[in-house]
């Protein structure tokens, strides 16, 4: 990921400092023998941030730290940790920054509910608007002022 970000940033006009090398993430020697455990490790890796990279998970990164973290995840899994325990272990060690999927605790609730709340508000606003448009139908079609009625009668030759 880092590289796309870097390149887009470059294209759109940032500097050229700190360019990363080619991405080659998970290496064959890291892969666990137990496929179920390995699948869990891969899934977890996708939710963990490579701390020295730019917006890149440890599953995608080829940085040394990412490799160390991948091995750490696998170590914990082999030791029998649940997914939650592995994540808790890494958060304790590296801080909340490591989680690509933000927690639902404290202020983060705002992040998670912002869109649904916005959606509800938008629906309500849209509903009110639509009702008003619907109601507007009757008067617009039927009302003529007294003058207009008289004029109409004249024209119709009554």
């Amino acid at each position, binding site marked *: 990921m880092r590289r796309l970000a870097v390149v887009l940033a470059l*294209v759109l006009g940032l500097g050229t400092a700190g360019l990363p090398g080619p991405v080659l993430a998970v290496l064959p020697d890291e892969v666990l023998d137990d496929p179920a455990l390995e699948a869990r490790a891969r899934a977890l890796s996708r939710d963990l941030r490579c701390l020295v990279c730019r917006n890149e998970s440890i599953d995608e990164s080829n940085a040394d730290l990412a490799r160390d973290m991948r091995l750490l995840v696998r170590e914990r899994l082999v030791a029998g940790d649940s997914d939650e325990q592995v994540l808790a272990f890494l958060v304790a060690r590296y801080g909340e920054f490591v*989680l690509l999927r933000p927690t639902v605790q404290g202020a983060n609730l705002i992040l998670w509910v912002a869109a649904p709340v916005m959606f509800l508000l938008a629906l309500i606003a849209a509903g009110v608007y639509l009702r008003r448009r619907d109601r507007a139908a009757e008067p617009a079609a039927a009302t003529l002022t007294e003058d207009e009625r008289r004029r109409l009668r004249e024209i119709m030759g009554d």
Partner: protein
Amino acid sequence: MIVELGHFALILAFVVALAQAVIPMVGASRGWAPWMAVAQPMATTQFLLTAFSFVALTWAFVVSDFSVALVVSNSHTAKPLIYKITGVWGNHEGSLLLWVLILTLFGASAAWFGQGLPAGLRARVLAVQSGIAAAFMAFMLFTSNPFDRLPVPPMDGQDLNPLLQDPGLILHPPFLYLGYVGLSMAFSFALAALIEGRVDAAWGRWVRPWTLAAWVFLTIGIGLGSWWAYYELGWGGFWFWDPVENASLMPWLFAAALLHSAIVVEKREALKSWTILLAILAFGFSLIGTFIVRSGLLTSVHAFAMDPERGIFILMILAAFMGGALTLFAVRAHVMEARGVFGTVSRESALVLNNVLLAVSSFVVFVGTMWPLLAEMLFDRVLSVGPPFFNMAFTPFFVALALILPVGAMLPWKRGDLRATLRQLAPAAALAVSAAALVWAMQTGRSALGPLGVLLGVWVILGVAVDLWVRTGRGELRGRLARMGRLPRADWGKAVAHGGLGVTVFAIAGMLAWETEDIRIARIGEPFQHGAYTLVLTDVQRLEGPNFRTTMGFVTATRDGRDVAELRPERRFYPAAGMPTTEAAIDYGFWRDLYVVLGDAQEDGGWTLRTYVKPFANWMWAGCLLMALGGLLSLSDRRHRVAAGAARRPPRGPDPVAAE
């Protein structure tokens, strides 16, 4: 000398832009015709001056004038000519010049094609557009001058980042900018309308082609960028929810919403103030994107040391234009009173729902992008918001959008009958559900993503087909087919664009759900199995390219004993930039891509080799192209051209069924 002339032309353009921002505006408010009329030659002049300036900078790159600082840091004599030219916009200053060039091009086009506009509106549009141009020219002249000279020129340049030396990136930035900047036209029209205090069907008809064009360019730009990421990054990812990408997605979503709401303004004279607000927001998010990218704000932790002065300048531009526009909106919006009346079940309502979903999904992206910054500032929490969040929070809204699309697209204007429309769509729904069920049954134990993608894709595409079919009326098959061919281009545009969305949705889900990966140490000559394919690494050679060295793997893929592809994955090293890159080898296929990446040499003589089978990969970009094509078809519709005053032919008889 040419470089100095370019610099001088830019300064002149800035002066012209300032004058054009003021004189026609005053003229329009006082009703002085000559003051208004001056906007058009000025817009042309401004464009020509900026174009000259751009050509001058390109010249410096082409002849490798290393006394220009920008050329030194982004070019090299050994670089192929095409990349010398693209190097012009492969950096902050040059890309800004391209941005301004496009801005003035749009301004000039409004002057050229805007003959049919009321004089006052045209003067105001051109003035606002020129104000934006003036702001960005000032930004460039005062903080990011591309024409800066070096007192002591070096012998050679530092080369353009090798990742940017790629055909996919030749066109990616120009298209993206055409899109971003194209939205400035909608913004200028919105502001002009607010100042005039009048929005009517004609205004909607005027804004739509510009928005449509901007949206088409954005679609192509984003598609190209994503395709480039796919083949260049070395593992086939195509979207990463990076702030920089989100910066382009938000305006795209708003532009799509604006496109649809402008239809309501044009056809039904409703949703006026909302459409104005959308036009302001769409361009506002273009500016926010620019700010995010160029200030380095959201990437501060480990990224580039950026000049804070630039960030502040853009923030000021953003604050001035958005603040001004939104204040004006707050003061004047009530003037736009809606005329059209429609039932709760109608095309209008469906488009309102479309707008709600698009705007909210854009809001999701915005909140997720800004949250790390807000959390750090307000709550002192350093955290990340990554792809898992966006996938979870964004997807539901897009799923909902795809679900309502076929229904909304078929509901009649004013007052519809939901049951009648649903009855027409019932076969499409049944087919979509059964296709999804079939896939679900075949792929037991996999994620639900695949079946969901099939459901949505089939539903949207069949929905489009049903819509076209129903529109042909009744009668003989041949007659109906003939009528289908005669449907207005706008109808075909709508159908193609919606179909493209269906294809893309299906492809994204399918690729994510069904791709397979194989990581191994491959030994030369030793075949291995990946799915239905047998692959063998036959050789690895070290070769020389024009400005790089490469390690090239030779991989043969066979299936059932038949040759499928010869693949040549590479690892390159660019000595001038001191940078390695990975070039994946891809066998593009209709049903799947075979994707091979060469890794490091192992001590025992093997090579790390990754192979992926990515089903429906090409469909994703084909879908993007279809969306863009749909936009272009719609743009070429007679009604738009008539609206644009370009052609005034007598009407050629009634359209088969009045549509859209």
